[in-house]
């Protein structure tokens, strides 16, 4: 009996109670009792998420330590590197004499290493996106032709050179964005929202157990 309660009915009851509280609090925020309950549950959630950081750190070290110990080909030097970087960054963030994360070393590490590297990654991505776009956009069907034409007009609507060539280009681009694009997007979003509501209700009443009881896997 107790096993069934903890193993099967317990999670379903918990999901129902918390979902109902969040649901009522979302739609009836004017009622102070609901507002308080929502704050309470969300604060619990925030604390739970904070604890997951500890699990993430433990998992990070367990994984990288195992790779280093086994000397997995091509991976262990990166595992050591990431562990060393982790420690260096944490120590720099906690250096005494300054408020947390305000030491010049820590700031330099972020501004001169992390930030340029992150931007460089995005820059590399841009080359691939442009090349991929050029190769993929081929007028093989009528639908593809519509897509290529829309892309061309919308691209030039964003760039000032489009207005210089002809005022018609931004006019067509804006119409594409405001009318057919929006209609399609709305349709997708509304159907998605209806599906999400149905799935949420199924989870609330315990019909969709795969997500937290592992059924059907």
């Amino acid at each position, binding site marked *: 009996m107790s096993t069934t309660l903890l193993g099967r009915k317990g999670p379903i009851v918990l999901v129902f109670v918390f979902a109902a509280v969040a649901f009522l*609090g*979302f*739609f009836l*925020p004017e009622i102070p009792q609901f*507002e*308080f309950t*929502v*704050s309470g549950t*969300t*604060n619990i*959630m*925030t*604390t739970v*998420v*904070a604890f997951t*950081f500890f699990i993430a750190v433990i998992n990070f070290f367990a994984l990288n330590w195992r790779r280093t110990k086994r000397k997995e080909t091509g991976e262990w030097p990166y595992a050591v590197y990431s562990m060393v970087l982790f420690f260096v960054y944490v120590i720099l963030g906690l250096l005494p004499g300054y*408020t*947390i*994360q*305000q030491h010049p070393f820590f*700031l330099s590490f*972020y*501004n001169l290493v*992390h*930030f340029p590297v*992150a*931007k460089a*990654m*995005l820059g590399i991505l*841009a*080359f691939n996106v*442009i*090349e991929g*776009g*050029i*190769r993929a*956009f*081929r*007028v*093989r069907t009528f639908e593809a032709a519509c897509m*290529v034409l829309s*892309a*061309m007009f*919308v*691209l*030039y609507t*964003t*760039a*000032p*050179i*489009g*207005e*210089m060539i002809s005022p018609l280009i931004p006019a067509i681009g804006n119409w594409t*964005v*405001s009318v057919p*694009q*929006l209609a399609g*997007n*709305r349709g997708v*979003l509304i159907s998605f929202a209806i599906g999400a509501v149905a799935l949420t209700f199924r989870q609330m009443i315990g019909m969709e157990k795969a997500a937290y009881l592992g059924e059907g896997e």
Partner: protein
Amino acid sequence: MSKVLEVIDKIEHMDRRLWGIFVLFTVCFPMVFPLGLPLKVTWETQMFYDYVQKLPDGANIVVKTAAGTLWSEHGPGQLAVLKHFFSKNVRILFWGGEQIAQFLVNTYFPMIEASPKYGPYFKQKVYGVDYLVLPYMPGGLNAQVAFAGNAFQLFAGTKDYLGIGFVNDFPIMQHFKTAYDWTVYFVNGGEPAVTTEMQIYTTTYHVPFLVSALSSNYMLYHMYLQSGQFVGIQNGMRGGAEYEKLIVEPTSAGAGGMDILSLTYTFIWITYLLFNVPLIIRKLNARRGVKK
């Protein structure tokens, strides 16, 4: 004709590294030789600017900005908006999500302070009274729901990002108890965060949104602009350049980026046309052959 098609085919199938060189050229050329193309302010950005311009004295603004990898896309825009905010008699609360607190304090604030036009306004503002940078709060969406519902409860016993004092002891917090107190929410970033935040703050608390969007999300956000949930959108780098023009403070990152955008898009246009022409000609030829 067939020789021309062959040449185009060869160009299309050339070494992909050469494509990189072409793209690099289109990006670097305007840096050396600026084109200085005229920029027209779009109605969405104008709407954004007008909304900020008309904010009443004592308005409470919550700001959630993004940083890091996508800075070149929306950084100039958010910086221009922050300059505009600081020139107004408003209170600004910076929500601490991800690395942004660090980015704000170390990158944006010195830039605003160094601005000849907006620096003096910023220097007049008092930390903790006119603006405050909240610490990082884990929990993502849940933390944001808690922040909207009861900020005092969420930040109880927590110090601000700079570690100067407890969040709830700062006078500015008296004006940000719940999301009902917020005049407007300025958010910067992409999907699905912005839509989800809008569902919480606008649907539940009726807080209008000002959004500095990535160009890839800009089209989706038009929907919310039409419905009135958003009261202004900036379209990525272009929106930023337009806003810089409106606040009369152009930078190399925003206005300068427009030349790069123009040239890169022209390159894409040319390739779309060039590589689709042989395809269309061959299709037409094939059709004629069938008819014969």
